[in-house]
């Protein structure tokens, strides 16, 4: 028996593998900036132990970057008859179900790199802040089609709060 939670009956749709590039580049830039801070301070003031902090940060970011392909492959979603199912995470797994009638709005976001690769990010907003469902790495046309479909579905299953 496996301890890992799973919903075997669901046929997950995965996000585009190109999203790995977006995520990796994002983490490289962010990691360089964050590790540069202790490095610069160490160079100017000569405090030794800051080098250790910088090295630790670098290791954390390297591990994150190495694991990115697996993490992206773990993201999945499925549009069921009445709700959206979403999953993500390997170490910390999370499954969310959002009924269409509960969606208050659907956002499409595009970062500069994602736009260059033709990718979009779809965000669902309900009246609960904790819902937090964001599907990254969708092809632009898919995202727009998905959004229109979701809005139409939400409209037909509209409920109060």
């Amino acid at each position: 028996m496996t301890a890992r939670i799973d919903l075997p009956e669901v046929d997950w749709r995965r996000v585009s593998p190109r999203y790995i590039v977006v995520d990796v580049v994002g983490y490289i830039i962010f990691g360089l900036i964050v590790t540069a801070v202790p490095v610069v301070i160490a160079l100017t003031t000569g405090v030794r132990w800051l080098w250790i902090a910088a090295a630790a940060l670098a290791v954390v970011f390297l591990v994150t970057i190495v694991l990115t392909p697996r993490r992206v492959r773990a993201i999945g979603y499925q549009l069921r008859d009445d709700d959206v199912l979403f999953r993500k995470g390997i170490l910390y797994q999370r499954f969310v179900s959002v009924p269409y009638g509960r969606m208050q709005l659907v956002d499409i976001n595009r970062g500069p790199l994602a736009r260059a690769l033709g990718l979009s990010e779809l965000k669902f907003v309900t009246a609960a802040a904790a819902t937090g469902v964001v599907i990254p790495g969708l092809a632009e046309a898919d995202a727009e089609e998905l959004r229109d479909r979701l809005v139409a579905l939400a409209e037909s299953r509209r409920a109060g709060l």
Partner: protein
Amino acid sequence: MTPERSQAVTDGQAFTDGEWHRLHPLTPLLRGGIAFIAILGFVLYNLRDIGIEILVGGEGGQPDPLIWLYESGYFWLAVLGVLVALVVVIVGYYLSWRMNTFRITDEVVEVRSGILFRRNRKGRLDRIQGINIARPFFARLFGAARLEVNVAGQDANIKLDYLGSTAADQLRVDILRLASGTRRAEAAAAAGVAEKNATDADGRPIARSAAASQLIETRMNEFLAPELDPGLAPPESVVTMHLGRLIGSLLLSGFSIFVLAFIGGIIWGVTATGSLIFLVGLLPALIGTSGYYISRFTRSLRYSIAGTPDGVRIGFGLLSTSNETLPPGRIHSVQVNQPLLWRKAGWWEIKVNRASTSSAQGAAGQQNTTILPVGNLDDVHKVLALVLPDLTDEASAALLHSGIVSRGGDDGFTNSPRRSRVYLWFSWRRNGFAMLPGAVLLRQGVIWRQLTIVPQARMQSVALQQGPVFRRLRLATVKLHTVAGPIVPSLGAVDSLQAEQFFRDVAAAAIRSSSIDTSHRWRSGEAPA
């Protein structure tokens, strides 16, 4: 008295006819003009002294700026300036009152205000999350009340301050009736009945031209009348607040422990160092804590809760009162909990999550979400029956009861497995969930006992989570997402297979319940009378 107001008192339909109306004529005074009058009085009082001094002859008093002004020759200019300022302020107040109008149609409630910067706020009646009538002490003396219509969201209140006290009560009934989805003709008929009751309840027809003594008497009756208008709600509050219990619950709070620790710290400081410098902090702390206790006490005194056809009505307050109606289906989750210190006494507290925030409540919005400040188990069941009317059948009530007090075991709940005891040392037997038709129950804690009830039709989404520690233990966490509030419904350490099944069930139930839910128009299903 303006024609609108006197009309509103005699004719209940006046406010809901879709026309624009004005607020109570004393509004500017009640909103803050009091301070202005106090300042004016202070200045006049001083002027009188100076006048006497000038006429009788000064007795060598110290040089006064006003006397200097009088002698300097600019005196009449200054007097003119003061008069102009006075006129401007009075005209400003008058205009702001003139420009502040509201109307209530079949669909919306709308308020316009502002002299230079106009502001228009419109709220849809079927989106109402609650109606609150607050009577601050001072406004109460003048027989005025503030009516606040809450819709979902932060700062999403439509305030009508101030209205005549009786008119406000009547208007609430009318708005709720319009919001409930009954047809207009019916509403008119029903409103007529309610209006009759309202005047009957007051004991006498409210004639504004009556003798002054009668006016004062009416005011006194209004002031002393029970919070719930007997004509509009069942006369009895289902829960009575005992004085001893209220005081006890305040003393047995976490805050009291903090106060005791603080006093202990000061005593230790004084005895250990021998210097009295530590006493300096005592006075402000004393004022602060007594203020806290007194405000909690007077707010919770005369607490009442009662069911009406248009929702649950909760009243609070001794001097400043507030009285709120929550229409059906506006409660997003309910939590019954028991702080450790209350255990011996068998007291409980009930909180709710709701989509709106009412500004009327002041300190930390506390009373706004606490619908039962303290009560015994009996009170808890009565209040739960009011706020969750669908869960009043015997089986549900039994399950709720075991959810509140049971120590765990085979009692209708699916509890955490034995292996979770490394994570939940004491409460693993009790930590569990159950499904009722229409609601999900989460039971937690054996020391701090709590039961969270989430109506399925109000659930926004549901999540299933698992981290590395729980994975080793084959456990998982289930979270139910509702609107923001003091309650975060979440249950950890559930057997992972059971959690998966629970997630599926809850997701399906949420869809099913919300598709058949009609509570935003709670009377629309009723057959027309």
